[in-house]
């Protein structure tokens, strides 16, 4: 049994809602594959209910395969939860760089 995961739901991977028909899902997947082949920056991650997750061409192909089969599609629909809104981008704190400059290469005794 190919269990639909909340973190890798085919609809999240393709970036489409469960209301799309098969042809729309197919078009979205092919477009995504083309963008991944081009190395487009927007295809590095996909949205999910627990935040952005890494995305690869294999994920897209698996998602397309799951949505072509009515049985696995209904399972994916049953496991679908709208993705969480993207978090606000905050400037990263350079603590790691500061610590690397001031600390030694190897841990030492407190």
């Amino acid at each position: 049994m190919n269990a639909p995961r909340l973190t890798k739901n085919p609809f999240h991977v393709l970036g489409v809602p469960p209301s799309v028909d098969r042809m729309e899902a197919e078009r979205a997947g092919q477009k995504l594959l083309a963008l991944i082949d081009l190395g487009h920056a927007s295809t590095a991650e996909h949205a999910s209910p627990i935040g952005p997750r890494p995305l690869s061409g294999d994920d897209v192909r698996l998602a397309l395969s799951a949505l072509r089969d009515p049985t696995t599609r209904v399972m994916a629909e049953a496991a679908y939860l709208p993705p969480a809104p993207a978090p606000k981008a905050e400037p990263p704190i350079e603590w790691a760089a500061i610590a690397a400059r001031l600390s030694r290469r190897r841990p030492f005794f407190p």
Partner: protein
Amino acid sequence: MGSDRRPAVTEAAIFPVGFVGLLALYLLRGFYENHRQHTESGRPRGKGGSADTPTDGAVPLFAIVRLGLLMVALCIGAVDLRTTSAVATLGGLAALGAISAVALFPSWAMELLAVRRGRSQLAWIATRFLAPWWSRIDPEHWSGLQAARAALRQTSPSQRTRNYLGRGLGWKRPLRSATQLVGRGLAFAAVGKLAEARTVLGAATRLLPSPGRAGAIRLARGWLIADSGARGDWADVLRRCRDTAASPEDAAIGDIVAAELGIPHGGVSLEPDELLWRPSTWWLRHRAAAARAQQPTEPAPRPSQSGDPHLDALATHAWLITLPPHHRTQAAFSLHTGRWLAARATGGAAIGRRIATLGARTEPAAVFDAVEEGLILDLVELFDRDDDGAYPAGLGASAPAERARERVATERIEAYVAQCEALSGSGTKMSQLNAWLRWGEARTAWERVSRIASRHERTSALQETNGTVCSFAVDRCNEHEEFLLSWDVFRWLESVSVAHDITTDLALFRSNRQVTE
């Protein structure tokens, strides 16, 4: 008038008779201890044979002699200081002061001049011959430990230092003391074998603390805490700092890290400001602050009910698997279970309609089973990743969280059983260091089991493996005279048997522990 001024005489004005005598006594005492320990090294451990047991050296007497000689030296130096040059007088006094400081505080001088400057050989020699003067505990192996500490201070140990640590510290002798074990662990760390260092030092920290082992175990725990901080494994830092055997300094570091990460802590054991001046503490605080910036300190509020039980169940699942470990509670698991069971009970009709629309060849129950399997896989991944939060208990076999816990517990028990079989599989050919490494790995595997497995599961696993572990300890004791390792194994077997009410072989474990003690 006038010509009776004495010429400036600085040479040989300070003849350190006392210091020469002092040095001779230091060396004599060092050679005496060396000779005494070598003559005892072939003796099986029994009463008085433990390297962790303080010896009955006349340290107070020698300390008085040392102080007396120093006073004599100071008197001779003061009387013989015949000079009219103020610069020479100040120089002589400064030299006298420096020598006096070294003579009065040899351990601090050795720490500053040898260990902190990364001089391994100097640290070994100084500790080997001078340690009997300030410590009665295992000076032979303490010297190896100090040499390894000095090597740790080097940014990149030279090949000469590596060879010295590898060959020159008597590594082929039986491991009989915690000091020896910690010295080898630190030597592993110094040459970059960090995985081995973690295992060996972890085994040392699990030894029962005693006055003879406290210093070495404190060093091992300090290294492990710093190492966990360097890897960003703050859960491990907190676990080690909150251990009942942790020193007040380690506990204070744990308080600092907990405060920086926003984790509730049971009270501050030391004023953190006392430790702020230390570079290592500064480094830990700022690494912890960086980790805090990456994770939310306040968990998301529990999802409210929207009227659709199915969506509510999925939203609760998403909320649960994103909770920080210290906010993962039994109440959260109960909510997750309750909402999922409600979704299963009420959502069949909607799923059935969708199946009919799509023309799928399945049943609503099979769809729910597939979704539930996905939830379980998410939770298994969560339990494997964040091992520091609570685990579900008493939710019933139908709860996805309980089934995920059972899967992870079964996997960990299988890993522990495999480690125990590896202990016996190598037989007598295993080197003593490999025996410690394997035993450390088995203990680590058991700790992972004990965090998640139920009492019944743990008892079954112990009943299956205790005999194998006992055979391993008997073999290491009888064939290799590794009494410290055997004692540690028997003590652990006895304690887990008592904790789980396993009476089989308990008397054997107890008597073997007493024999190897």
